[in-house]
């Protein structure tokens, strides 16, 4: 079976050494397979572990048990065990992540932030900047902001920079954490369009969509993340 | 310094009274060993000299002795001279180019007394020339040895205060810092402002202080047929440049080394090639330029007089 991303028997818990070593289990024996061109929306109450799962899938949180397989350059890589360099390479070429908030890098203009992952993949600077410009324009970020560092931007403006950065490289696998949370209706439409295009070119997408309308329009299916204490 | 004051003596060529040519060997004062130093000290110094010759430009430590004159008066040069002098040698001593200054006269008298060797003011006649601050204008030959008095043998002395570190820099030929100094000169003054004691690379390997000779004299060191020995008494170092060894003054491609001399002719002999001293002639600002090398100047004046 062909998959782009697959979690097998994934478990994750947090041990809080500073609070007497208490262990909080969040994910257990989770199985998730996402095919190319498919968009899976994570559902479940808040606190159930949706964001934890997303972060595990990105390699930001280490997996406690199980495997996280990703199709990377026609090979299968287990993010749970891959070393830091391989995870970076997967993130550069295969796996994108749009978080809820832009992590602002001081003094770097918006357009450079968007173009940076393109250049990291070897796209020429001019072409990368042109693509960044086009995406920011499509996301209705005023042109006068393109060459300013986003530190002083509004939440919605920062989120659009973040989205442009996530969509610019055309990753085969894309993780979206509340991509439309702080956007107005027009920009929500733009994001829905971007997701549809990504799916059309074969990208596998896993998302957390609080907005039911957006979720219904982009998701092919829901994946329920249930809180462990209820499941148990 | 003293030479400048002594210089404008009668332009008739009558300088160096009674000492014009080589003076015959004196009977040496038998109260002293030949050339003052005892034989084992001379052997020790000769070993240092041989090592110096074997490693051109490398500073060799030696057991510098107390000499009957103060540091700064050429105790290093004197010990080198004493160690290489034989009874048949003819010694010339110059200070700033002149044979008749206090320092030169004293050292010459010293060796006449303790070694009984012949002395001369004529560069051509000398087999050993001890010098402070100059190289004679006349090209030296294979049969001659030039002994320099050196106050500070370490060329990196002002740039790197730690002696151990300067040794490491020499050992590793790590001389970027010396070029930094020259860079700073050009940045500040528009040209390399070092006009004496101008650093040289010996045989492409060791950075060396040429002693405080004018930069004008640096080119004379390069591939000189005579053996060049350097003695630093207070700093207890000996180094050497064997005959026909490459000696290159440090510079930049776009700021090449240029030997500088005052743009005048010598007031006594008319030379436009020699290194000149500026001499004040009165208290109204009057001054003339004359050759710093008195033997060279005297010889030219004599040739001119003979031709007329």
């Amino acid at each position, binding site marked *: 079976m062909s998959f782009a991303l697959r979690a097998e028997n994934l478990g994750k818990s947090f041990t809080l050494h500073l609070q007497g070593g208490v262990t909080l289990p969040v994910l257990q024996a989770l199985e998730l397979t996402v095919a190319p061109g498919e968009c899976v929306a994570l559902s479940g109450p808040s606190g159930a572990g949706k964001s934890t799962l997303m972060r595990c899938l990105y390699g930001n949180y280490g997996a406690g048990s199980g495997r996280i397989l990703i199709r990377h350059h026609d090979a299968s890589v287990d993010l749970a065990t891959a070393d830091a360099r391989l995870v970076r390479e997967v993130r550069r070429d295969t796996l994108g992540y749009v978080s809820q908030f832009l992590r602002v890098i001081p003094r770097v203009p918006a357009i450079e932030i968007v173009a940076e992952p393109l250049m990291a993949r070897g796209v020429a600077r001019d072409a990368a900047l042109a693509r960044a410009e086009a995406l920011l324009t499509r996301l209705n970020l005023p042109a006068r902001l393109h060459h300013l560092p986003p530190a002083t931007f509004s939440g919605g403006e920062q989120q659009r920079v973040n989205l442009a950065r996530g969509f610019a490289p055309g990753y085969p696998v894309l993780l979206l954490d509340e991509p439309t949370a702080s956007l107005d209706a027009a920009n929500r439409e733009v994001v829905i369009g971007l997701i549809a295009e990504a799916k059309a070119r074969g990208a596998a997408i896993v998302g957390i969509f609080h907005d039911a309308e957006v979720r219904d329009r982009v998701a092919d299916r829901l994946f329920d993340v249930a809180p462990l204490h209820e499941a148990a | 310094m003293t030479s400048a004051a002594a210089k404008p003596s009668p332009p008739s060529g009558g300088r160096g009274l009674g000492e014009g040519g080589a003076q015959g060997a004196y009977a040496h004062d038998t109260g002293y060993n030949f050339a003052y130093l005892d034989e084992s000290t001379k052997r020790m110094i000769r070993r240092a000299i041989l090592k110096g010759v074997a490693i051109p430009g490398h500073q060799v430590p030696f057991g510098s002795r107390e000499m009957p004159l103060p540091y700064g008066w050429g105790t290093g040069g004197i010990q080198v001279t004493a160690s290489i002098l034989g009874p048949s040698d003819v010694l010339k001593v110059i200070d700033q180019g002149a044979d008749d200054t206090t320092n030169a006269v004293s050292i010459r008298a010293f060796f006449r007394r303790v070694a009984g060797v012949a002395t001369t003011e004529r560069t051509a006649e000398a087999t050993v020339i001890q010098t402070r601050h100059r190289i004679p204008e006349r090209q030296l030959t294979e049969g001659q040895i030039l002994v320099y008095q050196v106050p500070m043998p370490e060329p990196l002395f002002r740039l790197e205060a730690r002696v151990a570190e300067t040794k490491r820099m020499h050992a590793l030929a790590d001389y970027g810092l010396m070029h930094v100094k020259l860079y700073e000169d050009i940045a500040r003054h528009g040209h390399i402002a070092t006009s004496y004691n101008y650093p040289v690379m010996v045989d492409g390997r060791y950075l060396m202080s040429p002693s405080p000779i004018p930069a004008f004299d640096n080119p004379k060191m390069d591939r000189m047929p005579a053996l060049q020995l350097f003695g630093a008494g207070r700093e207890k170092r000996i180094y050497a440049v064997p005959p026909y060894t490459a000696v290159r003054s440090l510079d*930049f491609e776009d700021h090449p080394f240029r030997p500088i001399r005052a743009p005048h002719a010598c007031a006594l002999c008319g030379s436009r090639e020699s290194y000149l001293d500026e001499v004040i002639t009165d208290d109204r600002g009057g001054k003339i330029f004359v050759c710093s090398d008195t033997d060279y100047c005297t010889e030219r004046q004599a040739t001119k007089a003979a031709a007329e």
Partner: protein
Amino acid sequence: MSPLLSARGLELRFGRIAALDGVDLDIWPGEVVAIVGESGSGKTTLLRVLSGLAAPDAGSVIFDGQDVLGMNEAARRHLMRTQWGFVHQNPRDGLRMGVSAGGNIGERLMATGARHYGNIRAAAADWLRRVEIDPERLDALPRTFSGGMQQRLQIARTLVTHPRLVFMDEPTGGLDVSVQARLLDLIRALVAELGLSVLLVTHDIAAARLLAHRILVMRHGQVVEQGLTDRVLDDPQHPYTQLLVTSVLAA
């Protein structure tokens, strides 16, 4: 591809204190590795051993196929002024305070054979621009510079010969917070542009997050945790790392 620098089994004791206790480390080409930990955790000792400034009791350090610890002084110094760079916490340790900015930058060029004054000067002016110092200050002495400028000058002086591996010891240590941000950003941009490998020693978690691809957490001479920067900082496993990370958040 193989690691640019590779250390195995480093041990170093000062009396009864283990400064390095079985440390292994690889730095790959183009990789920025941060060593974090509190004062006395052994991180500066590790930096000194990796750069050949101190000898360990046991272990090996290989740079690009060469045995750093077995290397003679000449070879090590050659590395230091060609393929390596060292940025000190205190700019006074890395600059010649009595030499102009241009002379400071030019020194490494001259040490590696540059002999054209005009070219050296042009390269120095270019590097002043790159570290955001007015090239008009080319002939000024570093002591007339602010602390942040001195540190930027030190970086220019280090990077002018395009080293492959740069050791940085608390490069933002003595600076005001506002000045730190600018310096960090400058380092980040230059490192990316030149594709440098960097070993960064810092106790500043934010600096490590901004600059480093990978983090090693040191305590009592041991690497207690290491990995991808964001994973170590966002999902710390070791009690000491959790303490380090939460102390920063609380501050």
